């Protein structure tokens, strides 16, 4: 079964801002039985008090915490079924993402890049350990066991 969600009735355009014309193409708007409850807010000095309050509440709700649960698609062959706990650490010249349970890091100029790098690092570590499974020291075998508690290889 395939399902989709759309935003069809939300207007957030802040007045007084220049508009870039969009490409041609009018979206069809189909109501769905599973239409989502969507709140979409934007920064604008011209918003009403209510809209500003709503935006502030959303901003607070969606504020990232110090620790992140990390479960993106890190490799087409792998699937994360239990998220990794990741700490985002900012330094003067960039951001690091620290999967402290396995002492692995990802680096980047921003949070997204650091998380992408961490994903690649975890995938490489998994494949590297899994291919040498029979010859691992007990420490490394423990790391592999931990990874396998979080990751499943779904394709060879």
């Amino acid at each position: 079964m395939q399902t989709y969600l759309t935003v069809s009735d939300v207007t957030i355009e802040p007045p007084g801002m220049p508009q870039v014309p969009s490409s041609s193409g009018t979206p069809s708007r189909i109501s769905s039985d599973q239409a989502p409850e969507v709140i979409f807010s934007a920064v604008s000095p011209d918003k009403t008090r209510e809209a500003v309050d709503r935006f502030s509440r959303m901003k607070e709700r969606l504020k990232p915490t110090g620790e992140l649960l990390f479960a993106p698609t890190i490799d087409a062959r792998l699937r994360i079924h239990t998220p990794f706990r990741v700490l985002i650490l900012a330094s003067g010249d960039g951001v690091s993402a620290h999967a402290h349970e396995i002492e692995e890091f990802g680096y980047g100029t921003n949070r997204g890049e650091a998380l992408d790098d961490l994903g690649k690092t975890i995938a490489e570590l998994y494949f590297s350990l899994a291919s040498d499974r029979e010859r691992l020291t007990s420490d490394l075998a423990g790391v592999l066991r931990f990874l396998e508690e979080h990751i499943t290889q779904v394709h060879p």
Partner: protein
Amino acid sequence: MSCDTILRLMNNIPSVLAILLCDWIIIEQGTEKKTLVGVFENLKSTGFPVVRPMGFYARLTDLEGHYHFTLRIVRLNGDKEDFMAGAEFNFKSDDRLGTLELALNLPAVPFTEPGRYEFQLSADGIYLGRAAMNVVAETRT
């Protein structure tokens, strides 16, 4: 909600098959097929702030249970992130082999200044992925 609570209560984690940004998403009535018009990564503007209607498309699978999705639109500012806009929505799935398409035509996303922006998708507080775009100042000739 703390990470411990999320881990205790979490549903099956969705697998992200694609996340794309585009000008518009056309949904064909009847077949419900999606056409993504103008997939892009760079946006040029001669003036700021600029407001741009755009489409956010994500395709996910492995969903089973109730999910609370969040979409955060942020401007990357060095090692910080400035929250620009967001959306929240709930979804229930009882077909793990099915797919969910998020086809969101966002009416007006504000870009206050040139830079790199991210659309970050999470489910139940778990980070699933992102789409990034560059907003570039273009000088009028």
